[in-house]
């Protein structure tokens, strides 16, 4: 099935509602960063990722590594919309007997390609998967979603060197550049700028986009798929908390769950199409 950009917008809207529901019912979770990367994840899963919901271990599948693992609500929302997991499970997020662990658990959740949560490791993992693909002559792609705070971890740069050294053109990374981390603005806590230049210097194919524009996300992936020599990184300018007016660009919504009053306002905005 072919999805139009309008279709993607509708799916993303449902996903935003799913994200809100998960975090609210758990009274816990990372809502800001989930809302900033959801449009990227929706585009990947509904326009590009070659996956099989009936065979989550299919050896030729494209992989998606959520290196910024704390944004599991975003991943779980998309997996639910796609059909890997039951939508009913979403309300069990972070609860004691749920498979929907606080951070992605590859052992128990169909569709999760790697357990993550400790930042800085996903790009190395993506490289490992890409190297396996090359050894086995499988031409799947490996998508890897990084956080902007996350690139403060040194291991990311080790992995960047590796990806370029081994010419892993099957690695397509995204940087969810929402410019906020827990202690404030990324540029104030530990400046990562100019991050696009940094990745270019590390021999990546760098594409810069608006991370909430489906056409731009789509075109960037198409372009990245054509790259023959280098790993790609799509630096997506995003808004933390995107879609819920009072959360947009506010650092505290990194890991704070909305209370009832905020939840009702947010729910209403998402249902009536409010801000988007």
């Amino acid at each position, binding site marked *: 099935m072919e999805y139009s950009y309008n279709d993607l917008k509708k799916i993303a809207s449902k996903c935003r509602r799913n994200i809100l529901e998960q975090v609210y019912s758990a009274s816990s979770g990372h809502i800001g960063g989930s809302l900033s990367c959801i449009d990227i994840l929706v585009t990947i899963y509904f326009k590009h990722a070659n996956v099989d919901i009936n065979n989550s271990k299919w*050896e030729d599948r494209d992989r998606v590594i959520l290196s910024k693992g704390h944004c599991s609500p975003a991943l779980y929302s998309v997996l639910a919309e796609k059909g890997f997991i039951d939508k009913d499970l979403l309300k069990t997020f972070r609860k004691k007997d749920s498979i929907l662990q606080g951070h992605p*658990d*590859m*052992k128990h959740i169909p569709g999760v*390609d*790697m*357990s993550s*949560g*400790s930042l*800085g*490791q996903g790009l*190395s*993992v*993506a*490289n*490992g*998967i*890409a*190297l*396996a*693909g090359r*050894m*086995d002559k499988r031409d799947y792609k490996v998508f890897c979603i990084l956080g902007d705070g996350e690139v403060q971890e*040194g*291991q990311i740069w*080790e*992995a960047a*060197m*590796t990806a370029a*050294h*081994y010419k892993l053109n099957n690695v397509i990374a995204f940087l969810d550049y929402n410019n906020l981390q827990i202690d404030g603005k990324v540029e104030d806590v530990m400046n990562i700028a100019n991050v696009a230049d940094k990745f270019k210097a590390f021999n990546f194919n760098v594409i810069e986009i608006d991370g909430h524009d489906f056409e731009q996300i789509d075109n960037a992936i198409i372009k990245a798929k054509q790259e023959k020599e280098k790993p790609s990184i799509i630096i997506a300018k995003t808004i933390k908390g995107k879609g819920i007016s009072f959360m947009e660009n506010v650092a505290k919504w990194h890991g704070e769950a909305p209370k009832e009053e905020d939840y009702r306002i947010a729910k209403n905005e998402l249902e009536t199409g409010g801000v988007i």
Partner: protein
Amino acid sequence: MIATRESYGKALAELGEKNNNIVVLDADLSSATKTKEFASKFSDRFINLGIAEQDMLATAAGLATCGKIPFASTFAVFASGRAYDQIRNSICYPNLNVKIAATHAGITVGEDGATHQALEDINIMKSLPNMTVLCPCDDISTKWAIKEAAEINGPVYIRLTRPKVENIYDENEIFQLGKVKVIGDGKDIAFITNGITMHECIKAKEILKENGINVRIIDLHTVKPVDKQAIVETAKIVKHIITVEDHNVIGGIGSIVADVLSEEYPTKIYKIGINDEFGKSGKWNELLTHYGLDGSSIANKAIEIINKDK
């Protein structure tokens, strides 16, 4: 004479021949870790990450998710220390099939000194759920350990050392995961040990025999899962248990044995090892003597203990 790291290099190359899923990773130490033998034969299955151990272990995790059997090597101090979080969160937590063949463990690293001498790696690795920990002492047991590691479904840490050693076992010896090997049947002293100090305990055994003291040596080649039954049986039979290790006395074999016995069969034990201090530079055999880990020192300690009885 062959070092266990060299036995590893050979065993790995043989394994690579038989199994196409074996892939090997190194962090610029392949001539020291001996992965270069595999690398020269199977260059398309060898990945050098350069001096980047965290990257190496997480890359190994990625390969494991695709059905590969990665053997990742570096010095024990860097494998267990620097890449700890990657081993914990990207390998042990998702229970991925990565084998960490860590060479140059203990003070027998020698001249490189303290920053390179891993004295806490057993402690660190044994505390990780899903991890199997193996410490073979010679060429025969190392070859078994590497083959066994490849068969185990899940993470394995294999502790290997730098110096050349004699064979303790013969070609036809059978080893079982989680089951000790026993050398000798003395009832006065049992040395519980593994790795390089197996050789020193054998020397001590000979010295003690001349002194009328009869020794058995327990090779704890599988540190985890530990052979609780054998440890308890040993405590029931011998007069004294002495644990011997090229490792901190905190958290290594001594602690493991004390753990088992206090729960199952409370017994006073004696520990010989590195007494919660860092190592230093020197020739490996001189360092063993300096830290009380050579055959003579071990024998003297045993005599001291026996004499206290009288």
